[in-house]
């Protein structure tokens, strides 16, 4: 009998697990351990609305203390969990205290990839992961300030767009030959790259940042081809990896993330995992996937709760993601597969839909300012039915008519 569920990590996945447990009628204790001092908050606005001053800190809070109290969710901030003892069914907090569980949910998210260069400790060098990071960066992004972003992924590009809106001069350095190489389909990446250029962002592709110069504060950075760029603020947006180091020696099965089945169960009895830190079996994909997204955190949070409650629900929802840069809302669903054919739909100015088509089904779609296509595409991907290439490409046919 499960009397106590301990959730490690109070981000979107951890909080969702707690909420869904209560919604599902769980009457035992729910203990939510957060590493930060704040109430659970949403991260997507950090690189956008928070930097631009459109969202207060308060506005990022996902649920207020009153809600947690009413739901009898025992939220414990500043709780750094350092180890799992699966034999004893307990986790260890920094300082040595242990918390016993009947069921454990690992929802520790990701941690930043950090690359130490000369000058990394100077004032003006930033990472962006937490709300505190965002507030600190916001203080520095004054009009006329020169910002150098390392890494043309989502965080780097969203910060670049926010910084341009704030009147900063922005350069982006990227080791690959284009932006968002890991996840965006080429026509989408090209569209957004053009947009950043027309907004005044300068790109340095196939380049690495090698050193940061300055006395106490950042003054310049050098690149591996000898280029020297003057700068007052640096953002390192070099991606993340699952936060799973604390599980070492626990016996939990790990590949890139904590391996879970389609019910979020790990190999250890009573231990589940959800969100960025999990690598999950998914009914749509042959190999387990790591999905760094709000949707995945929420979906897996619900799955964990269902599994703990003994319900048979498995992961079938196609993954979806979004980003915002300038007035471009990028919405993506599904995962492109090797060998896919790309089909473009012309939607008129400042809008584009790209479909990633497998042999007999739609694997993914990525849209800029095309919510109708996006919502219909999500359903097409979930349905997994045969779709005609010609009709997909015909912009006069609505995607919803292909359902």
């Amino acid at each position, binding site marked *: 009998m499960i009397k106590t569920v301990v959730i490690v990590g109070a981000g979107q996945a951890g909080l969702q697990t707690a909420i869904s447990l209560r919604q599902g009628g769980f009457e035992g204790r729910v203990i939510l351990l957060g590493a930060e001092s704040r109430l659970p908050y949403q991260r997507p*606005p950090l690189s956008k609305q928070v930097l631009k001053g459109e969202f207060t800190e308060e506005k990022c809070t996902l649920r207020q203390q009153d809600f947690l109290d009413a739901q009898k969710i025992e939220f414990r901030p500043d709780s750094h969990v350092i180890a799992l003892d699966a034999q004893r069914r307990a986790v260890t907090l920094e300082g040595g205290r242990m918390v016993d569980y009947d069921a454990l949910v690992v929802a520790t998210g990701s941690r930043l990839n950090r690359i130490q260069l000369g000058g990394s400790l100077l004032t003006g060098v930033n990472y962006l992961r937490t709300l505190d990071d965002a507030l600190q960066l916001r203080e520095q992004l004054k009009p006329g300030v020169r910002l150098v972003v390392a890494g043309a992924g989502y965080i780097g590009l969203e910060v670049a767009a926010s910084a341009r809106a704030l009147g900063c001069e922005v350069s982006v350095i990227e080791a690959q030959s284009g932006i968002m190489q890991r996840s965006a389909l080429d026509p989408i990446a090209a569209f957004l790259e053009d947009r950043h250029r027309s907004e005044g962002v300068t790109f340095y592709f196939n380049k690495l940042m090698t050193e940061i110069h300055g006395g106490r504060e950042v003054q310049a950075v050098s690149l591996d081809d000898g280029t020297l760029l003057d700068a007052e603020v640096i953002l390192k947006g070099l991606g993340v990896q699952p936060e799973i180091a604390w599980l070492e020696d626990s016996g939990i099965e790990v590949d890139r993330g904590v391996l879970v089945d389609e019910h979020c169960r790990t190999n250890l009895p009573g231990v589940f995992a959800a969100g960025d830190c999990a690598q999950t079996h998914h009914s749509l994909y042959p190999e387990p996937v790591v999905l760094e997204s709000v949707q995945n955190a929420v979906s897996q949070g619900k799955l964990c709760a269902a599994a703990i409650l003994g319900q048979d629900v498995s992961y079938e929802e196609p993954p*979806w993601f979004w980003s*915002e840069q300038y007035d471009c*809302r990028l*919405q993506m669903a599904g995962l492109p597969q090797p060998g896919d054919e790309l089909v473009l739909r012309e939607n008129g100015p400042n809008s584009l839909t790209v479909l990633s088509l497998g042999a007999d089904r739609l694997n993914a779609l990525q849209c800029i300012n095309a*919510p109708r296509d996006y*919502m219909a595409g999500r359903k097409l991907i979930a349905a997994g039915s045969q779709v005609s290439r010609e009709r997909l490409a015909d912009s006069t046919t609505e995607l919803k008519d292909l359902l």
Partner: protein
Amino acid sequence: MIKLNVKDRDGEQHEVTANDGDTLMETLREFDWGVAAICGGMCSCGTCHVFIAEADLDKFPAMDVDEEDLIDMLEFSRDGESRLSCQLTLNPEHNGVSLELAPDE
């Protein structure tokens, strides 16, 4: 004080107190019967879909094209009543508004 009359997905009525300047979505997600609002108010997911009582509809600004497009694609949308609650910012004029949560998609 802004008080709203909300019918949840089980047909149960609730009187809800909202803060001036919050969105309707922010108000509704505080309840266990409330909206999921997965995307956090980006008009990206449709999980904060509500039906506003006809008499109260004109107390809110008209939909922009993104909201209209998204609602158009939702299975349970109702002409003239559907709104995404993340797009509706509340003020004292909304005191007494009646609404209903749309079914989960």
